[in-house]
């Protein structure tokens, strides 16, 4: 019974407007208020900061806010605390971003990092302004809905004479059919969580090591292959992706060379490695990509530092 007002409500309170916040609990919108002012949500918080032009972002003591937040989270039940925490991390990260931007010497934009930071700032503002526009529209829509709320649509209900008008119902459903339908409906509800399911990404574990070995063999034999040829037999998109990653690994190991005449053109791969096995490359790639049972999606970041070195 979290939000009783949301069950189909002929809730009398609805008329008095007491349930204006009824959907709130469905979001990760935080009940936590920063002591700076009463903010309610990441973008709201940021908009508030911008609106109060005198407020210096650099003066917001993130540590203090964090202390308060942790105290607040302790009062929550587990699931809610998790939601709110991730929300808070988002806000805090954005705040840190803004602090970073603010602390940069604005007049002398020279380094790549400065430009990147400025671009990030522009992007942030573009998003904020876009959100602001939608927020204003939402207010207008709310006003329109409120103005319209006093009108109720005619619902025809059951017409005493109307039953005879309907064509005779063709009925060939059995009680067993109904049972099956009910079970499917009830089960589906359990099976479909709100989150995007990631299970399917893990379904087929594709092994980078094996794919690299297979491509090495193919390239050694042919000397030169197009990427299309290399992925010709791939049974899924995931295999294509993994083979591409494998090629990058081989390239790093200087076992292959790439040639692409035009952007988006055919990628030609030429074997340039020694006759000997590139066992090192295979091991390293396997360590980076294949560990953790085909968890290909998660590995892209963890492998980052070692390759940049």
């Amino acid at each position, binding site marked *: *019974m*979290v*939000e*009783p007002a*949301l*069950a*189909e*409500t*002929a*809730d*009398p309170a609805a008329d008095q407007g007491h349930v204006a916040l009824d959907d709130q*609990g*469905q979001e990760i919108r935080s009940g936590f208020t920063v002591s700076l002012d009463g903010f309610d949500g990441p973008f709201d918080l940021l908009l508030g900061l911008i609106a109060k032009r005198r407020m210096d972002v650099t003066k917001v003591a993130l540590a203090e806010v964090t202390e308060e937040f942790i105290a607040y989270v302790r009062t929550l039940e587990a699931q809610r605390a998790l939601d709110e925490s991730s929300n808070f991390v988002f806000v805090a990260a954005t705040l840190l971003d803004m602090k970073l931007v603010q602390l940069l010497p604005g007049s002398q934009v020279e380094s790549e990092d400065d430009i990147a930071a400025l671009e990030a700032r522009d992007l942030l503002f573009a998003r904020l302004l876009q959100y602001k526009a939608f927020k204003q529209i939402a207010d207008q829509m709310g006003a329109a809905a409120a103005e319209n709320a006093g009108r*109720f*649509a*005619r*619902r025809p*209900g*059951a*017409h*005493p*004479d*109307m*039953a005879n*008008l*309907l*064509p*005779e*119902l*063709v*009925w060939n*459903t*059995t*009680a*067993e*059919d*109904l*049972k099956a*339908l*009910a*079970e*499917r*409906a*009830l*089960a*589906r*509800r*359990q099976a*479909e969580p709100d989150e995007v399911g990631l299970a399917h990404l893990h379904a087929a574990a594709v092994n980078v090591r094996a794919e690299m070995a297979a491509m090495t063999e193919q390239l050694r034999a042919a000397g030169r292959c197009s990427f299309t040829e290399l992925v010709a037999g791939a049974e899924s998109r995931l295999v294509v992706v993994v083979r591409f990653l494998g090629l990058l690994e081989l390239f790093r190991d200087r076992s292959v060379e790439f040639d692409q005449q035009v952007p988006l053109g055919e990628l030609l791969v030429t074997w340039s490695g020694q006759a000997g096995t590139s066992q090192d490359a295979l091991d390293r790639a396997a360590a980076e990509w294949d560990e953790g049972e085909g968890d290909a999606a998660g590995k892209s970041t963890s492998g980052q530092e070692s390759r940049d070195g």
Partner: protein
Amino acid sequence: MAEQPSGNSGAQGNPALEEAGSSQLVSHEDYLAAVEAVLMVAEEPVSPAELATAVSLPQHQVQALLDELRAEADGVTENWPGDAPAGAPRQRGYELREVAGGWRYYSRARYAEQVSAFVLGGQTSRLSPAALETLAVIAYRQPVARSAVSAIRGVNVDGVVRTLVQRGLLDTAGTDPVTGATLYVTTAEFLERLGLDSIEDLPKLSPHLPGVEDLEDDASAV
């Protein structure tokens, strides 16, 4: 309900000349229109007592208003005191009928041909898969509010529930004491179609499905 508070009414048949219970409504036409508004949008026939409460008038005055509205819709001129008969009003495409102790506007029988052309335009002789699934959920969870069925099916079910009611497979059964939402149950006709004696004879659901309590919790949380 709605007993006359003062009693000493002078102008019989013109409720507006008596003491107005609502501060909002003043004229006779206002009261007529308010009753008309309720009858127009209420989903089921409304009793004079309910109307009396809604417009804060004694029941006998509401009765007079109902008679006036019925006559007006039928295009019958009657002389209401203090009300100038404005020529012969046209007969409306709807009529005000008294059904099972309540009043409601219905389309006039004279236009049955046009109405059925319209209604049949969208009707088929088979229930859609969505309707069947909705029926199945309600059969096992009755009495149940539409919102709970929506929560289970993940889609709005208002339209299909109306179709099923129209088809006589579902009926309303009061309202939820907490939310006030209308509750739905299956009908005797539904059992007849399935060849069952009672709802108890429906095949048992698999025990692995969420219990009724879970459902109610979830539905209200949405």
